[in-house]
């Protein structure tokens, strides 16, 4: 089969004296739905940063879609990054732009600067944006100002932006930590359905373990920058989760 989507070999990331990830090795294959779980500070966001090419490893090798990002020119790296869409906990939308512009921002990797400018005045690709919004269930918000939307709706806009980007893989960094429980289920179900329908790979970091069980097929447990387990969701026992989140490890 083809190359794995992501391949990490003994990757360590340090910020000054602090080690955020140490000797992490893993692979993600096309079509997988992977949950990253672990306490705050375990290195989930750092790992996602490696996967979308915004962080470089201090040691070890990272391959994104078969390429080593540290050896790519900036331009070539951008071409790879276009294939990797990210949804963020805090949405990372521009609050005072219309929804359509935030959705169209997903096209920027393909658009020339002139086209991007023009679209801010006369929105282009309206049908595509409308379709993306319909896919996330807020078709009627195309021309609304983004900051007039609720948190759950804004996260849907962020997902629509990723749909417009049309990447191979979607990364989601705690996508449901800023929305209420009912919205959480909807967002997770939406992500799963979209990945199924458009055959995208999904890597999502989660605090809510129940969604890791219900919406993903594989779980990677991180603690203090190390991979504690990497198993199919069905094989992760409750005791392993408890150990992952325990305040202080006996052998630490």
């Amino acid at each position: 089969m083809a190359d794995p989507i992501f391949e990490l070999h003994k990757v360590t990331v340090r910020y000054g004296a602090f080690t955020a990830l140490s000797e992490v090795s893993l692979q993600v294959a096309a079509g997988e739905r992977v949950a990253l779980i672990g306490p705050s500070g375990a290195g989930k966001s750092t790992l996602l940063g490696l996967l979308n090419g915004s962080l470089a490893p201090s040691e070890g090798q990272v391959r994104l879609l078969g390429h080593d990002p540290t050896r790519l020119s900036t331009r070539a790296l951008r071409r790879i990054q276009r294939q990797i869409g990210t949804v963020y906990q805090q949405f990372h939308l521009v609050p005072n732009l219309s929804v359509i512009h935030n959705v169209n921002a997903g096209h920027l990797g393909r658009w020339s600067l002139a086209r991007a400018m023009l679209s801010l005045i006369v929105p282009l690709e309206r049908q595509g944006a409308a379709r993306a919004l319909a896919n996330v269930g807020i078709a009627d918000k195309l021309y609304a100002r983004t900051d007039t939307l609720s948190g759950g709706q804004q996260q849907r806009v962020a997902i629509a932006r990723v749909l417009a980007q049309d990447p191979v893989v979607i990364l989601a960094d705690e996508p449901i930590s800023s929305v209420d429980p009912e919205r959480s289920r909807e967002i997770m179900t939406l992500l799963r359905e979209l990945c199924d329908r458009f055959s995208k790979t999904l890597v999502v970091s989660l605090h809510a373990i129940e969604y890791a069980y219900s919406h993903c097929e594989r779980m990677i447990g991180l603690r203090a920058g190390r991979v504690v387990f990497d198993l199919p969701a069905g094989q992760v026992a409750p005791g392993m989760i408890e150990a992952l989140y325990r305040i202080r490890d006996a052998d630490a």
Partner: protein
Amino acid sequence: MSASSATQHTSALPAALRSSLNGARLVALVTLVAIAWATTQVGLWRGDLINGGGWALVQQFFAAALRPELSADFLLLTLESTLVTFAYAICGLALSLVIGLAGGLLSSEVWWLSHRRPSAGRPEAPWLVVRGALAVPRAIHEVIWGLFLVRILGLDPLVAILALGIPFGAITAKVFSEILDETPRDALRGLLNSGAPAGQALLYGLLPRAFPNLLSYSFYRLECAIRSATVLGVIGAGGLGYQVLLSLQSLRYGEMWTLMAALIALSGATDWLSARVRQTLGAPARLEVNLAPGCDAQAAALARATPSSRTLLGLLAVGAALVPVSLIYIRPDFGRLLSPRAQMLLGQMAREMLPPDLSAENLARLLQLSSQTLAMSIFAIAVAGAFGIVLAQPAARQVMRARWPYWLARGWLLFCRAIPAPVWALLFLFIMFPGPLPGALAIAVHNLGILGRLIAEAVENVDQRPMRALQQGGAPPAHAFLYSTLPMTIPQSLAYIFYRWEVCARETVIVGFVGAGGLGRLLTEQLSSFDYPGLLSTLIALFALTFIVDALSAAARRPIR
């Protein structure tokens, strides 16, 4: 006295006193000493300040306020002059915004970082180089630019546009780069991470978010441009400033009041329009000095305002349409920029300037005049600050229940700032002997009008809930004001005052031109006697002074944030 005893004790009891002397206390102490020094330097304590013979003129001047010149011819002239001043301001502002946007992007950290790989670290800081380069045009006042450009390009509206646009452009670039750097970068980062090129990512992820602030500051610059265009008129560019000067010098006070009414109407209308626009944009403070980015008041204002993109584009379209209309009205001759004559004169001036006059005699004179200029600026800002803070309170909409103190304070502040500083200087010279004091007072009165308005807006924009809470607890309004609104706005007011000191230091030059002492007066003499080596050394001294004042102002604002 308190200064010397304090320093003695610092050496004797270092730890205890130093801790009580640091930060705000140190700033307060140094400020008081500096003000005391400045009053002696500008000659406040000398006996012969008032020229008694001038009172008759003052009486005539104020009596003429009741009989303004209202003949049809003169009203037409007034209208034309008003339009000329407005057109200068629009063209100069347009140029400054072009320079400001380009320079602002290039001197912002975020521009350079988004063109670099996020994992690349930050070994060098090219934006600091651009910032440094922009500091030079910024330090030189519009009027000096004007006098220079007149020598090279001849008398043409082009001179006024460039003289306004170049220094304003450099100032705007600095503020724009700060706005861009303080705008949240999450959306930008998200777009860059998804492979968008830097230009497109900035266009979608950063500029829309910074846009209300950029536009709001541009409207504040329009207010400044109107005032500067008036001052440039005083030195010969035409328009209202020039006509005011003519009427004043020929003692036709009735005409002068008509012109001043036009000036006040123009300035007042611009200020009102700018305030309205900024309210709509959700950036009500015209100038944000010392505000922590994303602070509550700012966030609340942004959330309240929901300007539609139609409003924004409409504003842009009107602004863009005004530029060609203004250009047609004043007809600058852009050909002069490339004319061989201009190049010849520029080369000649450059050759004659070098080397600057660094003789011991000249340096001693420069040092003495620099200290006089510094004293003038300190005295001016002390007076402006003291009266500005007091007048600003009634000028804030919510402070007094009765309406008349509000309108009185607002009207007086408008009057103060609408009259250009050189004209104030000439008015003070009616009753005072020439010297640094009338010049300093002129700057004080003009800046008092600007400061008072800035502070009043800060008072209006402060969180009203603490005041309401105290009143609900039974405190009378005045008491509640003293214990909530006033202390909450004092840091911001002081920050404005220190910031405005930088402007005062630059403006000492323009009152120098009407004979009010300091480096400005020397500069005038050197310009009229074609003493270019001396001129260059004076410019260097001015430049150094500006940098010292800016650095001191920034240092003083830090502990009161």
